[in-house]
């Protein structure tokens, strides 16, 4: 039976968070004066005009001793070394791949930085160069972490990537969700096996990969042979529900980390999966998840 729902638009009211967490945040818009005190050093997102420190981006003011900077709420991914990112191959070039990671420039993955299938570690020969498309093609998704930049080649600021460990590599069946990088919380680990039955990779660049938890930790696979068997229906339901919960959290600008996603998932269980994206249901489950997070913080 077809289900078609239409509604009139309603101006979205901000969620009422009655308890300010960690004190009031100093929010600024471009052009707002942050301070007229000349003793501060200006950091990212600020500029000086007429002895006043003015914000150039919309965001939160952060102060570390004498350094004042504005962290933008929405922007491209500015990576740190050691971040975990999920990206999509856009081009296959000579001895390297160009990867899209939601940053200002495409990232670069060198042929010498990857593991060959089967876990071999050897110098890449000319045949490997010609067979690059057999490993990673345009459109493939990979997860890896950022390495220090090689100064001479990447002086334009492009990011160099590195997939030495077998834990990283080509991603198989699953769902990709693209969110703003500022919503992904920095944690010790970004690979989570959630108790509800699916696994999640929270890329620091805002690309979130949801996939069915593999049964055995297969170390010999090397990560290039994708498992092409159909995913069972129960796993699909979990994955779809998680995807909708993440979209709900993003709509209300809640930080994404394993606990917030899990609480939102549990709050959504009474509803049908496709109803989660209805505005009133979204608000209800996000409020419940937010309440649980506040209670658990203390």
């Amino acid at each position, binding site marked *: *039976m*077809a*289900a*078609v*729902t*239409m*509604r*009139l*638009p*309603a*101006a*979205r009211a901000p969620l009422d968070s009655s308890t300010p967490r960690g004190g009031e945040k100093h929010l600024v818009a471009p052009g707002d004066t942050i301070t007229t005190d000349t003793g501060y050093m200006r950091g990212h997102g600020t500029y000086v005009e007429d002895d006043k420190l003015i914000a150039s981006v919309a965001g939160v003011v952060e102060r570390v001793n004498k350094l004042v900077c504005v962290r933008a709420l929405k922007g491209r991914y500015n990576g740190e070394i050691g971040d975990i990112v999920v990206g*999509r191959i*856009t081009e296959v070039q000579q001895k390297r791949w160009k990867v899209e990671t939601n940053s200002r420039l495409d990232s670069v993955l060198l042929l010498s930085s990857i593991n060959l299938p089967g876990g071999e570690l050897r110098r890449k020969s000319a045949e490997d160069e010609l067979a690059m498309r057999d490993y990673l*093609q*345009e*459109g*493939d*998704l990979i997860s890896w972490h950022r390495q220090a930049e090689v100064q001479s080649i990447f002086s334009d600021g492009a990011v160099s990537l590195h997939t030495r460990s077998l834990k990283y590599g080509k*991603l*198989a*069946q*699953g*769902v*990709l969700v693209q969110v703003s990088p500022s919503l992904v919380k920095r944690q010790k680990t970004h690979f989570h096996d959630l108790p509800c039955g699916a696994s999640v990779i929270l890329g620091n660049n805002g690309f979130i990969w949801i996939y069915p938890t593999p049964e055995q930790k297969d170390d010999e696979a090397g990560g290039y042979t*994708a498992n*092409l068997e*159909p*995913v069972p*229906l129960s796993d*699909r*339901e979990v994955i*779809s*529900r998680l*995807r*909708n919960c993440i979209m709900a959290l993003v709509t209300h600008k809640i930080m994404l980390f394993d606990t917030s996603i899990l609480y939102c998932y549990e709050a959504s269980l009474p509803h*049908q*999966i*496709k109803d*989660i*994206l*209805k*505005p009133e249901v979204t608000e209800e489950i996000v409020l419940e998840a937010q309440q649980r997070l506040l209670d658990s913080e203390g």
Partner: protein
Amino acid sequence: MAAVVLSEAEKLYIVHGVQEDLRVDGRGCEDYRCAEVETDVVSNTSGSARVKLGETDILVGIKAEMGTPKLEKPDEGYLEFFVDCSSNSPELEGRGGEELGTDIANTLYRVFSCENSVDLKSLCINPKEHCWVLYVDVLLLECGGNIFDAISIAVKAALFNTRIPKVRVLEDEEGTKEIELSDDPYDCIRLNIDEVPCVVTLSKIGYRHVVDATLQEEACSLASLLISVTSKGAITSMKKVGKGSLDPESIFEMMETGQRVGKSLHIALQKILDEEENLGTSRPKVGFLG
């Protein structure tokens, strides 16, 4: 169309999901995403509507102007469609979006080519001399998959919202005709939209077909069928798009699904338009700042 690139494994996941009637966002094969409809958003038009279907955002404005009737239909007015997709992505700026725009405009002409869809005789002022021409401008603000359906819903809502001023034709002694516009701004004629069709796009993915495909699902589908259905379930036009082929059996199935889904679409749209109408001036206008 601005398409996304997907890996083979992602496409396989989507195809298997559709076979089991559970799409990536939890919908069934015949479910639409939640749509938001608002009319009267642009002030200097005769009628306008904005439709948000998931990520897809469409704005339609209709201006009624006086013109001369076409030679072959001297006692009828007519509709002119123009589609602009330049605000969508950098590759569609300037000439790039023209191809997509003309493609959509031609489809709209075909959908409205059926005689009964809009009562064109009511748009006539003086046979052979004056008639109302409705210029329908469609703006594609954001493409999130399934733009044809969203555009047809927006056009129907905008036609419902259109108010054409009443005119009187005065003839003086020499026989020259003068057209007099009514002084009261609220004295206008409304169009009857009962027979206006809506487009339902059915995309073939694997062995089944889905309604209201997202960009990712469109990337997995090789062939689609665009069917325009009226509120009573009559099909007014049909078009096949895509490089893949369709089996005649599956075309019949898709047509049946299209009719069923089309009827539900019309009922939902009429309900929301009536609801908006009943709220009258007390309706909180959201527009583009909500």
